[in-house]
């Protein structure tokens, strides 16, 4: 069952930017796209662990600030020639608030 936790307002994240959520499984990056959609990914690039939350957001993807890997928000997969994947987490917007599925986060801790 999903347990949606309010983690903040959409306005707390800059457009084409990200903020970090600290969890027991490590930091998650919650992104806001140019079209005001939100996505949550583990804040660790599959390449060398770079903080994706500090990358440049374009379309539905982010470029890792360390070595320019481009990670898709939807699949968590590295784009192009690079090979790797970060976990993604269910997150949604409701009346301007960002809701994160804590159950999914907890499950990934158990796994």
């Amino acid at each position, binding site marked *: 069952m999903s347990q949606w*936790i309010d*983690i*903040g307002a959409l306005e*707390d*994240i*800059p*457009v*084409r*930017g990200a*903020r*970090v*959520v*600290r*969890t*027991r499984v490590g*930091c998650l990056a*919650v992104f806001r*796209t*140019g*079209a005001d*959609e939100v996505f949550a990914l583990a804040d660790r690039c599959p390449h*060398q*662990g*770079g*903080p994706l939350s*500090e*990358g*440049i*957001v*374009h*379309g*539905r993807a982010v*470029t890792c*600030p*360390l070595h*320019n890997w*481009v990670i*898709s*928000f*939807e*699949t968590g997969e590295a784009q192009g020639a690079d090979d790797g994947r970060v976990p993604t987490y269910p997150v949604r917007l409701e009346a301007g608030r*960002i809701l*994160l599925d*804590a159950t999914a*986060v*907890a499950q990934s*801790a158990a796994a």
Partner: protein
Amino acid sequence: MAEKLVVIGAGMASGRLLEQLFEKAPGAYDVTLFGAEPRGNYNRIMLSPVLSGEKTFEEIITHDADWYAEHGVACRFGEAITGVDRARKVVVSAEGETPYDKLVIATGSMPFIIPVPGHDLAGVVTYRDLDDTNAMIAAAAKPGAKAVVIGGGLLGLEAAAGLRLRGMDVTVLHLMPHLIERQLDPAAGYLLQKELESRGIAIRCRANTHEIVGDRKVEAVRLDDGTEFPADLVCMAVGIRPATALAKEAGLACGRGLHVDDQMITSDENILAVGECVEHRGACYGLVAPLYDMAKVAAETLAGEAAAYEGSLTATKLKVTGVDLFSAGDFAEGEGREEIVFRDPARGVYKRLVVEGDRLIGAVMYGDTGDGNWFFGHIKDGTDISEMRETLIFGPAFAGGTPLDPMAAVAALPDEAEVCGCNGVCKSRITGAIAGGATTLDAVRAETKASSSCGTCTGLVEQLLAFTLGDAYAAPEAKPMCGCTDLTHEDVRRLIKSRELKSMPAVWQELGWKTSCGCHVCRPALNYYLLADWPLEYADDPQSRFVNERKHANIQKDGTFSVVPRMWGGITTPQELRAIADAAEKYNVPTVKVTGGQRLDLLGVKGEDLPAIWADLNQAGLVSGHAYAKGLRTVKTCVGTDHCRFGTQDSTALGIAIEKRMWGSWTPHKVKMAVSGCPRNCAEATCKDVGIVCVDSGFEVGVGGAAGMDVKRVEPLGKTETAEEAMDLVVAFTQLYREHAKYLDRPYKWLAKVGLDWVREQVVDDLENRKALVERFDLSQRIFQKDPWAERANAETEKKYRPIADLTLEAAE
């Protein structure tokens, strides 16, 4: 016997419902119609032409007194309903009680009023009904009157355009970065803004209204940043809220709007609702098409027919004469979604289709919306578009046709076909020039001007070259900036200047970007080009900067940051050193390193500690060293005549003066400088981007050195007698580099492309030009020479640098 139907609200939704009902079940109901306005149903969406004076109110009336009489509707206009007694099935008004068998609530919506101080002053209006419209028309009658419209959505812009046509001086304030952000993407928003500005409407985006100023009557609108806009009239058009007060009081289930099921029935089986007051499957609507869909279903329900409303897809058009704008469906980008973008900068046309699988799911069009409904039809029907995909964007005229081979297409163009829209050059001019010996793109440009302005027809001209010359044509190997464009960095820089492109969406649109918002390669470069060329007009976009410049610290491989305070010319004091030592201890800095630029680097600082450590260092008078910036880094010095027995000039003072003048300036890549007090060159000035070596007779200024992946000695730019002139040369050279170099080219790479001779002409020989360059540099410094630490060492930034939420505690519970 006919049942009693009471309708509350005489707007467009209930009007359509009654039309449908009288058609389906004539005589089934005795209808009593209440309306808050003292008039019957009129076409509210046509108020814009009434405001602008293009139509009269009479022309937009939908139902006149005859129509109501003909259908036996008892009209109770201007009579407010104060309550609904559901147990007794009566509605209550000032005139008494009116019984019903069935009740329809169609109370519409209320304009949202931002609760800023002064919102209740005389002269503050909303834009909802005829009375609002008349109030605005009356205000516009005063000569020279000024209007401020708060809200750059559909309604606000229609109000603005109407008021402008009435002769008012109009300013639109919009909170978001681009206009109509709910229905338009940034590119279309940009085109719309340009069009409205050309009509004399001032537009200010990212404008947060702080207060409406005035004594009883409105006098001005003040923003958060203190800017004031004088106003005789303020129109608030920031949005609508479903009007549910009556329904709530009657105990009907409400969320954002009044809840209805698919039959448009509320939580009371005898009460239906339609229109903007309704919430259906979680959605509220403010456009007319869904209201009509609802009205139809409600009429069928009342007529005893089985019907279901399943929600509406919406399409939007802006009703401002001469502005063509259309959007429909879902036009966000995404995985599995592809976009087809067509731009014609010369005509101001932008079209974007969003395709998912074999279906069209969204469309945004500006400038040429003739095919809008055709696309909307395909979106609604879920048409399989795979067969016509290649030509889909050209609309029904081309649908299903086979795509032409580009070479065949160019061959098929008639001689008089216009190839370059900017300069009006037709095909035969170009082929003629090629036959006359212009065998390269540059030669064709020089001869005919084709593709020399916006550059978007470059591909076509190249195809003509290839077609006319065959194998004799060798295409140039210009490297495009990135996958978003075919233009090179140099092309883009030139076009940003010559076409006065002053925002990111302006560049994307006018230069035909292939993506909707760029990528990590082009965005930082564009951000730099725009701020370097338009320091006063362009607003820096932190989200288009690499992390180091966004955070004002260097990211390290473990995700921590380094902090480097400036030490002017490498000179420090015990007090500064003490402050640095204290900060290093307080924030558990694991490594303190002396850098090659004569200052101290604190490595391993946590991102969330940055604002606090900056505040501490600021206290001791230390500012950011920009050790992370594509900008001025350090000016290294030796002790010069102060202490050294060989020193010929005061190199330390000159170095400090240069650093104090130039810190904070953004450049295409990092810039390191040095001043050595004698040719022994202890400050290593001969391998810097700019290096000065002092001699007995003056100052030798060298440029284009390097000591990184390439090692290069500086080349002599010029020699001056005074320190002031040396400084001028350095500043003018840097400004020339700022204005012309490709992003991420260090000065030596740029010099290799443009040649030192050209640079000398600009900076050394042409004194007027040198002066102008220095002035432009100083102007830019007025904007950008600010200590980023001081600007960010506050609670607000501290909050932003911290995690948005901490779930470690909750998870432990």
